[in-house]
């Protein structure tokens, strides 16, 4: 995988991650919902547990921070 070459998108996601780091102490994915259950929420710390499957299926993660590496 690689970082999305769309710098604007990376910037937006980074801002979201920074806001969550500041508020919750962890870099939770900005497009995922925090449940309040520490164990459950561990799954959505960037890069989240879903990213590999999403990259495989859609070529990018839900937040579009990572994309499939171009050969």
């Amino acid at each position, binding site marked *: 995988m690689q970082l999305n070459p769309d710098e604007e*998108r990376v910037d937006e*996601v980074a801002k979201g991650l920074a806001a969550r780091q500041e508020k919750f102490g962890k870099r939770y994915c900005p497009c995922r919902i925090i449940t309040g259950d520490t164990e459950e929420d561990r799954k959505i710390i960037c890069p989240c547990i879903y990213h590999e499957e999403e990259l495989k299926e859609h070529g990018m993660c839900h937040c579009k921070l990572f994309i499939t590496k171009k050969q």
Partner: protein
Amino acid sequence: MKSKFRIRYIALIAALCLLSVTMSGCLNINQSGYEFKGGITPPTVVSNLMQNGPVILFITQNNCPDCEQARPLIANLQSQYNGTNVTFVNFNINDNSTSQNVAKAYGVTATPTTVVLRKDGSAAIFVGVFDPGTVKSAIDDARSTY
């Protein structure tokens, strides 16, 4: 002999067609790429809105780039249904517990999530930035239930 074979062949085709129609009816799947799922009890705030027509829930949260990307799409759809019985409601889960309860009721784990509701409460759920044409088809489908 030939006509016997022909009758069997026609019967087989008819049976397959019937099976296909029945299956698609049971699963509520259509070729537009959305599926209405039942078994979800709408929260009171939503069921009250469902009395007069289909309800579209647009569930977002702060600092979500895709939510901002989808916002003009939902606004555009909303303008297309101005003056109809379709109700659009925005729920930002950072705003209040009502929004959080609505998100929970529909099993929302990522945003934006757009939910189209039919009269019977069944829901077509779109996660992420949606294709407006597909959501429009789902809304028209939902309208036909009223």
